[in-house]
């Protein structure tokens, strides 16, 4: 054990003298610091801004004057997606998805004003966040620092002396890995600080933060093992560097870009425009509210009359127009749900295809686990869309119910002819207060963990792969010595 530590200590001394290694490490630490501070500030700002907008929208809704309830259905409501605390570590898809939706009757609008659509193409170069620094730049720095550790000894012939002194290949490898592992731990430090800060100050879930730290540690550990293995199995230091750079470019830059292309080609997604037309088409088929002789709405009318035991809609104790609005909204909402389900299923299948490439790229595995644990994966956005739609349906139906119960059928029919009726259909604005505000329920820890399972499993696969490589390297060195 002491030999291992001795080798590690010696390696650290050498690393301190290596200009490129020192520069790379310093740059990474500086970037980590910058990314940590800007990410925390950006998250806090964005979240506060969204909360402010949400409060403004709630206030404006509650403050509407006396109105016909159907006016309020069209006035609608805005909801904003809050940013989870751990988004300051890994913002995931937050910038790629709209964070506000306008909710109104009859229609389902898209989530708009995502950051990336409002950014120039610089966004394509990657956003500098603590997660990005460790996922993409971290392995590269480990390569720069460690590619020569064993190859150099081989080139200079010192490997033989070590053997002559009775050093086992295992101790050598372990020592070198310990030295590079120390560097990896140093690189992880700013991230740990950032996670700790988020847990303490922003009340991020502790176990989520811990698992994030473990995931990143496993990822860097894989790279430590890969670097040591490559350094011991290649002819010289330069080959080790070129192979490792190739491996990094392939797994961290290339495969993550190719995987989405393949996933998209395998299962394409229909455009909003087509879905919109398809929904309108289905609506006309189910029941055309514009057609007075439409069978669906005729049946609905007959059934309603029967339920209340009357023969004319005028004799109903409630406003038939309100009932009709509720029935219409029920049909459209069911279609929205149906098409959303299809869309989410396709997206999940695309996601699975892309995550499958985690077998070719540890970066994909880590990103998947990291976003899931941070609550910034596509599931988080889907959750927002679903909750927004449920809220939309609830408030629209509440307003339709008000139309049915607080507005008379006669007044509703005469509101454009008779100023008195027009005054009466505008119901008391206290009702707007009674409509509950939107509260977003973020993914529970349990849900986050479950979503992180594929990524975490893939990371363990890579850990095993790294260990196997290291074993092979150790055996080869043992034989060569």
């Amino acid at each position: 054990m002491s030999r291992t530590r001795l080798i590690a200590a010696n390696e650290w001394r050498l690393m301190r003298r290596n200009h490129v290694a020192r520069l790379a490490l310093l740059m990474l630490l500086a970037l980590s610091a910058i990314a940590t501070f800007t990410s925390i500030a950006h998250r806090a700002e964005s979240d506060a801004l969204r909360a402010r907008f949400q409060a403004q929208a709630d206030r404006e809704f509650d403050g509407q004057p006396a109105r016909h309830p159907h006016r309020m259905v069209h006035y609608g409501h805005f909801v904003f997606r809050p940013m989870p605390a751990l988004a300051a570590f890994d913002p995931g898809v937050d910038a790629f998805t709209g964070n506000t939706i306008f909710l109104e009757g009859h229609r389902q609008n898209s989530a708009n004003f995502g950051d990336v659509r409002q950014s120039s193409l610089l966004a394509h170069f990657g956003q500098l966040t603590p997660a990005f620094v460790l996922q993409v730049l971290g392995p590269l720095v480990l390569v720069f620092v460690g590619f020569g550790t064993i190859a150099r000894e081989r080139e200079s012939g010192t490997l033989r002396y070590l053997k002559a002194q009775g050093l086992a290949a295992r101790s050598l490898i372990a020592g070198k890995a310990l030295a590079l592992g120390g560097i990896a731990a140093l690189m992880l430090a700013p991230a740990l600080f950032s996670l700790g800060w988020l847990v303490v100050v922003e009340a991020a879930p502790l176990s989520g933060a811990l698992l994030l730290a473990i995931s990143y540690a496993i990822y860097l550990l894989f790279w430590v093992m890969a670097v040591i293995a490559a350094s011991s199995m290649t002819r010289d230091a330069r080959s080790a560097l070129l192979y490792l750079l190739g491996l990094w470019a392939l797994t961290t830059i290339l495969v993550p870009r190719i995987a989405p292309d393949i996933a998209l080609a395998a299962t394409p997604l229909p455009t909003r425009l087509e879905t919109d037309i398809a929904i309108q088409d289905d609506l006309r088929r189910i029941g055309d509210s514009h057609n007075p002789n439409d069978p669906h709405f005729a049946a609905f009318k007959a059934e309603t009359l029967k339920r209340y035991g009357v023969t004319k809609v005028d004799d109903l104790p409630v406003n038939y127009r309100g009932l009709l609005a509720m029935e219409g909204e029920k049909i459209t909402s069911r279609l929205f749900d149906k098409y959303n389900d299809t869309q989410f299923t396709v997206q999940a299948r695309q996601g699975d295809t892309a995550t499958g490439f985690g077998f070719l790229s540890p970066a994909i595995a880590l990103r998947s686990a990291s976003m899931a644990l941070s609550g910034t994966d596509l599931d988080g956005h889907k959750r927002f869309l679903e909750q927004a739609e449920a809220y939309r349906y609830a408030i629209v139906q509440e307003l339709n119910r008000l139309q049915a119960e607080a507005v008379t059928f006669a007044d509703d029919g005469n509101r454009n002819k008779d100023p008195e009726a027009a005054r009466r259909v505008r119901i008391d604005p206290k009702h707007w207060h009674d409509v509950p505000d939107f509260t977003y329920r973020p993914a529970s820890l349990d849900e986050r963990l479950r979503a992180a399972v594929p990524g975490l499993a893939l990371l363990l696969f890579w850990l095993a792969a790294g260990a196997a490589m290291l074993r092979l390297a150790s055996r080869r060195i043992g034989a060569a010595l």
Partner: protein
Amino acid sequence: MMMLWGHELRLFLRQRIAVPALLLMLALSCASVWAGLAEVARQREVIERIQPKQAKDEAAIAAWVAKEGDVGNAAYYTFHATWDSPSSLAFAALGQRDIAPFVLRVRALPLESQINESENYNAELALPGRFDWAFVLTYLAPLLLIALLHDLFSAEREAGRAVLLGVMARSTRALWLRRIVLRAGLLLLALLVPFIVGAVIAGSTAAMTAIVAGIAAAYFLFWIALCLLIARMKLASLANAASLAMIWLAITLVLPGLALLAVNQAIPVQQGVELTLAQREAVHAGWDKPKAATMQAFVRDHPEWKDKATFTGGFHWKWYHAFHYLGDRAVGEQVKAYRTGLEARDAWTRKAGLVLPPVGVQVVIHRLARTDLAAQLAYQDRIRTFHAALRRFYYPYIFNETPFRTEDFAKAPRWPAQKTGQLATASQERK
């Protein structure tokens, strides 16, 4: 002379790294061009595919609206399709077309609540960026170039041949030049040939293709110069490779990331949300405002309807369209401010491109391919023009109270085929 070149070629190809590097470049370039062409074909297919669906949708609306002939219903229920065809160079740089809609329907109601609609796309797949030719050029080609050039001089020095070469060669300058041209030139060729084939398939003009090829060559020159600069420090091959890879990391990943942080921090664009919230307030307040005042304000901008702006009763489509129009107008300043913010972000990116060659290359290629933020804004401008035409189309029916019949649906303005400065049209028209 030719013999010398042939000799150098044989020497180069005998290197362990040469053939794999060239083949990898060729394979990556081919794959990216193929992926880009497939994506552009998919986008064109979507645009083709929506036409009959849109026609059917319009016909279904016409079927019930025309019976009563109420233009208000026609204007309210009819959505009009717009689309933004990919240019003939889009295959090489797909840009923002994966996250911004390239097909969008609008109706003659306030535009500000329609124009910022998003497309359905899988955000997790959009996150890493697309695999297109511009990506291969900006990120991967320099890495391969470094692999081929980092030991140009140092390898000879390390093998102890440098002095000998200096003595034997008629001109050492010509010798090194031959070697550089050969190594970088073959790599450039492996990168450019698939692109040129793709450009021909996509119907890009020869001039455009040549400009992009020129940009790629200039980008190569920049990296060659960097390699030579590092070589002047007379380090070992190993140190050369490490230094160059560090520089690559700094200027392709780190500095653009910092630039994005700075630009987005310096120019906030929350006006988008603000104007959307404000526009809704403005539109819906219209229901409660005195009708006469609303009509007066509308007529100030539309004097042609001065004599037709009166009506009786609690509701009339004239009034409805008047206050909806005023809702849009109320946020005109904010729309402008939002737009200015987006343009400022784009302008600063272009400035960053002057300092950072990878950013510069991306900026220029995406501009030529019409797939950048500016192209997205240009599409929105065309939608604005189209929307104004839609209002102008419906207003005479609304204000003259003319019935709207089946044949009138066919008279509505149609989304024009792209012509505004779109270099793609030449090829589209040929088809």
